[in-house]
């Protein structure tokens, strides 16, 4: 039963019609009078000193208005994690991967800019390059950043319990090595930026970004101007998945050239540039050692994780930390040692991608659990249930898990996929598998995670909502509007939302870490409550009742106990006005997730998220044993997202996660040869299409979270963790081969089957 009017409803996204009809305007759809078009010259070498850049040919070319190279820009490094800044907008001294930015031009047309790029001459001195992170860690390997002589730019070591002792006490020890591949986010909209400078020198940048406020700060830093001289506006964004949290050369160059030429400037990346020169999911080498007791208790786990970071840091320290922390749930592991290394190589750069460092390690753990179960003669479901963490249990690393439906999701997902009837019982070539995971609903106590909102009740009863939240296609604006509509008792169409404009809307950290609904939703709800209370005060006075006895619903304000007694919203606004109260009626909200324990993300034990979500995904697959092709027949997701503000949008996230998981498990890999990406197009790279998507069942595990707005929790990134291992485990059930590296292409399946036959 839904006691709400707007929350919990399957409302179409507010911009669905605009998007379906092509009216929605993305950055590349915008243009300004006198606009110039930019193009970037990129390095064709994986590692080289830049000796000389000769721009004169480009500068003389027709239509060209300006050309720059690294020596023309402020020597200001950037990086999304302040302590790990290691990148210049244009390479200054050397290039570190094929695709690194060397120079840029702007011209009166795109053709002219492209033509001009080919007239820039660059002298390089090639340096030895390294492409394998394990090689890069060895003494004597080429040094990619002088400040990091061993190429290891971020590490984490975390231990609790007594791992050595626990292994000594284990009845069985399992050791495996896993490898994961580079995966590109493939947002449909390529990265783009449009900049304009006004007479005061203020820069306005329209950018396909998922974190406008961070971008403002990073852009101001790299341009070496005050933050107040930069305004970021986020138009419609066509997907991000983490790839749009970084500042890119296109942002810097658009702004820099706009300042230099006093004309608007636009940069749009080619699809090839999205593949070679933005970000990708870190490939990882994972050594995993697990100690088991005879009864199926996981006694100890030891991880050594080497992440291939490519040429720059991006989120390196955060990524490797998250990889570590999310391995401590959803199973009870009393003794754990995690050693993680982020290593530079002369390849495309790793960055945040849905799940951020966790899907790779999750795959290793879940795949190994199934082989352990097999070797020990235990049902993989029972093994997981036996070790499933429970709410309220003391966590060995002092995480505070107040609610945990993990066992529940295991049981429900297994039931829905037909575990009992199918696991180990289907004909050769068919199989089922499952995998679990846990994710935070935003992280508490880290800096920059406050969110603000403003709600204005207009004279005609319409509601204006300002939020900093960055909708990148997931529907954040719709969800936040629903929250405000519910709070004010109006319908969704009364809400007019303006979002993600650093000059107009309040601060918001942006779209990452699965925190938008909780953070920005709560801020908006608070703002709506404040505005509502102002109105209630006037109404209460007029009706001679207490303000706290009033309720707003169905465009009315009335006495809770006696709904007949009340007035329409319009009347209420009139009452407010005629009582000589100041107009307009505005409510402001600021929200920061509460910290229940000190956060110590890096070294010590302690809690770090207000709430943890838990989930299980199950898969059924069919393997064509002659072609090696794996067909996913069905996926089940059991995910606890608290209350779904908009169930249709939650389903969208779940479905997307299945497709992402299929890509990671079966289809996708950014293939490089000596640092050169060989498949930088949608045709060659091969993300799964709608034709590959199986029926997806999502099992309701709705709970009511005390912290989330109307009880909502995350349903964004967490859903991405377990689809891939669930598929891998289903393949194991189908053909008895457990794959330790991704993606499992038809060719690998066939090879494995042939090897198995020989044995």
């Amino acid at each position, binding site marked *: 039963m839904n006691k709400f009017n707007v929350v919990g409803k399957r409302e179409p996204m507010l911009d669905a019609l605009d998007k379906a009809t092509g009216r929605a305007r993305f950055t590349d759809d915008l243009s300004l009078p006198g606009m110039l078009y930019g193009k970037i010259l990129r390095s064709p070498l994986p590692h080289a000193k830049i000796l000389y850049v000769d721009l004169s040919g480009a500068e003389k070319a027709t239509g060209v208005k300006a050309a720059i190279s690294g020596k023309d820009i402020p020597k200001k490094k950037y990086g999304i994690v302040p302590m790990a800044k290691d990148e210049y907008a244009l390479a200054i001294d050397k290039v570190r991967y094929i695709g690194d930015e060397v120079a840029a031009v702007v011209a009166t047309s795109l*053709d002219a800019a492209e033509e001009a790029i080919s007239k820039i001459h660059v002298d390089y001195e090639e340096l030895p390059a390294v492409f394998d992170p394990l090689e890069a860690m060895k003494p004597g390997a080429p040094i990619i950043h002088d400040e990091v002589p061993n190429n290891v730019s971020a590490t984490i070591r975390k231990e609790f319990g007594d791992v050595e002792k626990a292994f000594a006490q284990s009845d069985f020890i399992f050791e495996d090595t896993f490898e994961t591949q580079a995966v590109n986010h493939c947002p449909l909209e390529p990265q783009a930026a449009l900049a304009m400078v006004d007479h005061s020198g203020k820069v306005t940048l329209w950018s396909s970004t998922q974190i406008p406020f961070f971008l403002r700060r990073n852009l101001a830093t790299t341009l070496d101007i005050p933050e107040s001289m930069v305004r970021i506006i986020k138009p419609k964004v066509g997907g991000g998945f983490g790839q749009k949290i970084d500042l890119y050369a296109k942002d810097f160059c658009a702004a820099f050239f706009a300042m230099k030429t006093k004309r608007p400037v636009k940069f749009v990346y080619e699809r*090839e540039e999205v593949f070679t020169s933005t970000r990708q999911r870190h490939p990882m080498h994972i050594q995993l050692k697990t100690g088991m007791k005879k009864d199926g208790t996981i006694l100890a786990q030891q991880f050594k994780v080497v992440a291939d970071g490519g040429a720059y840091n991006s989120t390196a320290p955060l990524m490797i930390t998250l990889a570590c922390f999310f391995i401590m749930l959803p199973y009870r592991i009393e003794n754990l040692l995690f050693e993680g290394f982020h290593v530079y190589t002369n390849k495309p750069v790793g960055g945040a991608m849905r799940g951020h460092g966790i899907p790779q390690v999750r795959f290793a753990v879940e795949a190994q659990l199934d082989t352990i179960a097999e070797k020990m003669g235990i049902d993989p479901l029972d093994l997981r249930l036996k070790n499933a963490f429970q709410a309220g249990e003391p966590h060995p690393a002092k995480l505070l898990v107040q609610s945990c439906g993990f066992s529940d999701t295991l049981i429900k997902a297994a039931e829905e996929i037909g575990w009992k009837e199918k696991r180990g019982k289907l004909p050769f070539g068919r199989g089922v598998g499952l995998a679990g995971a846990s994710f935070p609903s935003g992280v508490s106590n880290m800096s920059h995670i406050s969110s603000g909102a403003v709600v204005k009740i207009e004279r005609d009863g319409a509601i204006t909502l300002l939020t900093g939240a960055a909708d990148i296609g997931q529907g954040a604006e719709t969800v936040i509007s629903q929250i405000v509509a519910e709070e004010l008792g109006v319908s969704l169409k009364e809400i007019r939302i303006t979002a993600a404009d650093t000059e107009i809307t309040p601060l918001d950290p942006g779209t990452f870490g699965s925190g938008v609904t909780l953070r920005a939703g709560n801020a908006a709800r608070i703002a709506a409550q404040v505005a509502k209370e102002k109105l209630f005060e006037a109404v209460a006075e007029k009706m001679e009742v207490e303000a706290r006895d009033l309720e707003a619903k169905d465009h009315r304000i009335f006495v809770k106990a006696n709904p007949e007694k009340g007035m329409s919203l319009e009347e209420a606004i009139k009452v407010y006005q005629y009582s000589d109260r100041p107009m307009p009626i505005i409510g402001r909200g600021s929200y920061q997730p509460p910290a229940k324990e000190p956060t110590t993300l890096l070294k010590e034990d302690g809690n770090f998220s207000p709430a943890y979500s838990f989930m299980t995904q199950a898969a059924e697959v069919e393997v064509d044993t002659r072609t090696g092709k794996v067909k996913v027949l069905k996926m089940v997701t059991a995910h606890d997202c608290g209350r779904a503000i908009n169930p249709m949008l939650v389903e969208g996230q779940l479905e997307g996660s299945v497709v992402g998981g299929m890509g990671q498990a079966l289809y996708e890999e950014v293939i490089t040869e000596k640092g050169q990406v060989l498949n930088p197009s949608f*045709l060659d790279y*091969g993300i799964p299409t709608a*034709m590959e998507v199986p029926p997806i069942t999502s099992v309701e595990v709705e709970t009511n979270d005390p912290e989330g707005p109307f009880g909502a929790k995350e349903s964004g990134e967490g859903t991405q963790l377990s689809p891939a291992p669930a598929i891998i485990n289903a393949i194991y059930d189908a053909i008895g081969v457990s794959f330790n590296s991704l993606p499992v292409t038809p060719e690998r399946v066939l090879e494995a089957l042939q090897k198995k036959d020989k044995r």
Partner: protein
Amino acid sequence: MGVGWPRNDVSQAVLKRKTFQKGKVMRDPVSKSHLWKKPCWEKYFRVKTPGEAVQILEELQGESRVIAGGTDLLARMRQEGFGVKALVDITCIPGLGEIRSEDGLIRLGAVATPKDLSQSSVLREKAFCLAQAASQIGTPQIRNLGTLGGNLCNASPAADLAPPLLIFEAKAKIAGGKGEREVPLDSFFTGPGQTVLNPSEILKEIIIPELRLDASATFLKLGRRKAADLALVSVAVLLAMDRKERTCQLIRIGLGSVAPTPIRAKQAEAFLIGRRLDDRSIQEAAQSAMRESQPISDVRASSQYRREMVGVMVERAIRKCLEQLEGKDV
């Protein structure tokens, strides 16, 4: 799009780079990527007759190109960064997109789109496997824009329309300065990206016979995914048998993506002809087709995998034809 024979350019660039010595100073080292250019041409002619097209092509010897849907040409011009004096658009020539059936022959106009082919009632009735192949090309956009002629003249080993046309022993009708000529499709392709056409000729029409009533034909495409993908291996098979003896009366096997051009597996055909169609003979024919293929390795799959898949797909295609024939019996 470097269809099927892709990325030679990139590996060339990589090879070249290997030869650079450490520490050597280089000016503007080569890399095809990031140097893409807008395709450019000085003139664009939209012609109304084949003769007009031929005339322009002859006048601008070698410096002009035919453009139909442009789905291959424009992508290649952009990737390779080359321009031409003129593009000659043949898609507005009246009748050049028609699909007709007369006197047991089906005539397919060169600018018929894959969508036209896949929805043609003539083909659905009389050469279904061609409609099948057309419906599996690329994406809806590509199927609406591309053409039969472009698919063949582009001469990609992965051209999906080639194998089914090969098993129909299609003839290509070519118009040039000296009039028209007919070339069997079998000898139309001369290498990856190369055909018997000289620069001032255009492909006008493809002619195939209707499928014999006692025969069946099928097309199978193995890609990494079901849509928007090029074939790793594509197979078309045409089969007729003596119903009593179950011996093979007629067999034609067309293969795509596994040799420098689309090919017929003639040894496999020769092996099977006159033989009883059973598991063993079918498997042996499939083995023979495997030996006849000479696939390459690329980012999509290794040559070894492709070769193995020739066997699997040929076997499956023959069995499917058999099933259809048995269905006809009932």
